[in-house]
């Protein structure tokens, strides 16, 4: 049923259809609307039997989910940014224990400086944790991915994180075709835990594993993620069969057949990119787009297949590894080894900086002419940066850059000019 609905609300409604049994929540923008909505449904009794636990931190939220999952319950939580980092230890732990928890990550930048707006730094921070990370392009896909996420998590006994851009998706009201309960029930069977805390059949979960077996444990976790590379398309296919909708999968190509340049990205920015590509196509440039839905496991083969025929690949991402460069770009480069593709890295949209179609058009224009450097920061205010660099050069004690930049931009009242 197509409904005009806020993204968060669509997620809440979809999660509810998945019959979660324990939902634990700690508020952080921009995730709040999701758990608020689930909380209402639990309190109303719509989800019974379901426990909604208001915890005292994200660390506790993931920990409660771990306990619930180990005791055989379908567990769900949502977080973002700082919250994800605060629960980081438990994030790794859930994966290490092989507990099929599903978590929504409303992608948001990480401070300092504190910033509540969207980028992908948070997701990148936990990319090695052992969670499956799926990136949604639209609210429709975000909603659909949650159903697939539970299915995937429980089939493989691996936790799954559905990443959706904070505010851009979570707070956007648009048409979403909400699933109906019978479809979800048919698609998502009840949770059958691979291991469970059961007095009638006791086991010890969470042993200490030393050098004699730790590497094997990690290797097996890797194999399970590789297994997911086979399961994700199947699950998406089955979802299509049930709903007629293409959601999920590993990678998606758009107008790449004859492309000289292929732009690679994840999440909601793909929509803007596609618009810009259409316009550049109209100008005669042969440019296409590949969207990565499954960031972990990383579908190297599929990425390689999708990109290998393009001489130039532009990876546009909302995160980067300070001191190195793009995170996704690194993975793409690895996947393209030996193909001769040139990979250009573009960092964009950090901390919620809008990625406008116009900026993208300019970018693609330059790309088509081979004018891109190895690493570009889209729409970087070079003047501000230069002034700060000059200040830093003048004296070692120049104060925090963030404050200086804001002062420079006139967004902060200037105090203590004496420095």
């Amino acid at each position, binding site marked *: 049923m197509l409904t005009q609905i806020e993204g968060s609300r669509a997620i809440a409604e979809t999660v509810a259809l998945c019959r979660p049994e324990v939902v634990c929540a700690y508020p952080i923008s921009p995730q709040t609307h999701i758990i608020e909505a689930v909380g209402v449904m639990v309190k109303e009794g719509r989800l019974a039997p379901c426990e909604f636990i208001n915890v005292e931190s994200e660390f506790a939220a993931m*920990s409660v989910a771990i*306990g619930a999952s180990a005791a055989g319950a379908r567990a769900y939580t949502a977080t973002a940014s700082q919250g994800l980092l605060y629960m980081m230890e438990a994030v790794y732990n859930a994966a290490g224990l092989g507990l099929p928890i599903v978590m929504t990550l409303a992608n948001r930048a990480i401070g300092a400086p504190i910033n509540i707006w969207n980028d992908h730094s948070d997701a990148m921070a936990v990319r090695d944790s052992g969670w499956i990370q799926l990136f949604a392009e639209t609210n429709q896909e975000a909603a659909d991915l949650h159903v697939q996420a539970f299915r995937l998590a429980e089939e493989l006994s691996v936790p799954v994180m559905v990443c959706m851009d904070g505010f851009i998706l979570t707070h956007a009201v648009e048409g979403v075709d909400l699933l109906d309960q019978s479809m979800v029930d048919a698609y998502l069977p009840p949770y059958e835990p691979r291991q469970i805390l059961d007095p009638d059949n006791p086991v*010890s979960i969470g042993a200490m594993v*030393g050098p004699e077996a730790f590497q094997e444990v990690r290797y097996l976790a890797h194999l399970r993620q590789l297994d997911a590379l086979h399961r994700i398309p199947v699950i998406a296919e089955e979802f299509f069969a049930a709903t007629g909708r293409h959601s999920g999968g590993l990678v998606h190509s758009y107008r790449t057949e004859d492309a000289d340049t292929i732009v690679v990205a994840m999440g909601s920015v793909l929509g803007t990119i596609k618009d810009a590509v259409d316009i550049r196509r109209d100008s005669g440039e042969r440019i296409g787009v590949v969207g990565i839905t499954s960031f972990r496991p990383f579908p190297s083969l599929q990425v390689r297949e999708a990109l290998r025929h393009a001489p130039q690949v532009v990876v546009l991402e909302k995160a980067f590894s300070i001191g190195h460069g793009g995170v996704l770009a690194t993975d793409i480069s690895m996947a393209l080894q030996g193909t001769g593709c040139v990979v250009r890295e573009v960092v964009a949209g950090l901390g919620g900086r809008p990625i406008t179609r116009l900026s993208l058009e300019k970018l693609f224009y330059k790309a088509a002419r081979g004018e891109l450097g190895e690493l570009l920061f889209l729409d970087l205010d070079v003047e501000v940066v230069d002034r700060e660099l000059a200040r830093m050069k003048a004296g070692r004690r120049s104060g925090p850059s963030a404050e200086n930049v804001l002062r420079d931009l006139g967004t902060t009242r200037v105090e203590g000019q004496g420095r």
Partner: protein
Amino acid sequence: MTKRPIRFYQVGSFAVGNRLLRDDERTVQSDPHRSNSIDSGHRACQGCGEALGARYALDAAMRATQGQLVAVNATGCLEVFSTPYPETSWRIPWLHSLFGNAPAVATGVSAALRVKGRSDVRVVSQGGDGSTVDIGFGCLSGMFERNDDVLYICYDNEGYMNTGVQRSGATPPAARTATTDAVGPQPGNAFGQGKDLPRIAMAHDIPYVATATVADLHDLEAKVERAMSFRGARYLHVLVPCPLGWGSASNETIHIARLAKETGLFPVFEAEYGTVTSVSKIRRRTPVEEYLKLQKRFAHLFGKNPRPEIVTHLQEIANRNIERYGLLDTADAPLARHATTAEVRS
């Protein structure tokens, strides 16, 4: 009082068992078919108080729940010595997640059981003092505040023993640890305000809070049983001497725990909904020296350069406990050295 003293038997009130008691009056530990929730082959040090305390508490919980028990364990000695791959010492369903999240994990288990309609299965969460009073304190307080149906048991050995005896929020003043060495003008741990978790727990007004030691099994078992008669958050704080960290002889574990109580340094009591309902009276009042001298972590207070003023300070702490909880039958009973002759000889 939750326990019934049995006076007419030689040792009815104090020893583990008694062949003359009816089966239903016997301790769990005297039962040859006890659960042995934590079984032989674990790698705890010789004379480990925590291994003992865990078995005492969990076996009692097993009896109280007719075997319908799940345990969550924080990282720490207990976890490490019980479950090094490929062997586990546990005989009950057991889950270890992290150092600081055992109360929250237990909340999750408890919630799942409720959802599954298995409220007959009860949840125990356990950890050492480090995971309880320090790193896991936030989760613990949250669990208390929500009044989740979890019995949390802290096995307090007054320091981070698993990592090599460092100071925790539960390390007593003047005690030497690897991070509060016995050097400088104020050797050992600083005199602070302490972090009295049983009282902090009581401040949450949860249904049940109790302290116990491994020296009084009857008391400990009665408290576990009492704890299991409540729904909601419960807290049991068990003093478990650590031969390694305290520098005591491996055979002194129970003796030292007993002295901790008899000196007043470790008050043994129980509280319901924030109010103390009973205290275990001191039976043979003992000056703190006799407790301290058995432990190398306090050795710098004695010997060649004794620090009697620090010992006096510690005695004052004991006296304050005695006063606060009314640990003596008569409040003004003198502190008699001779009262402990038998104890010292034994």
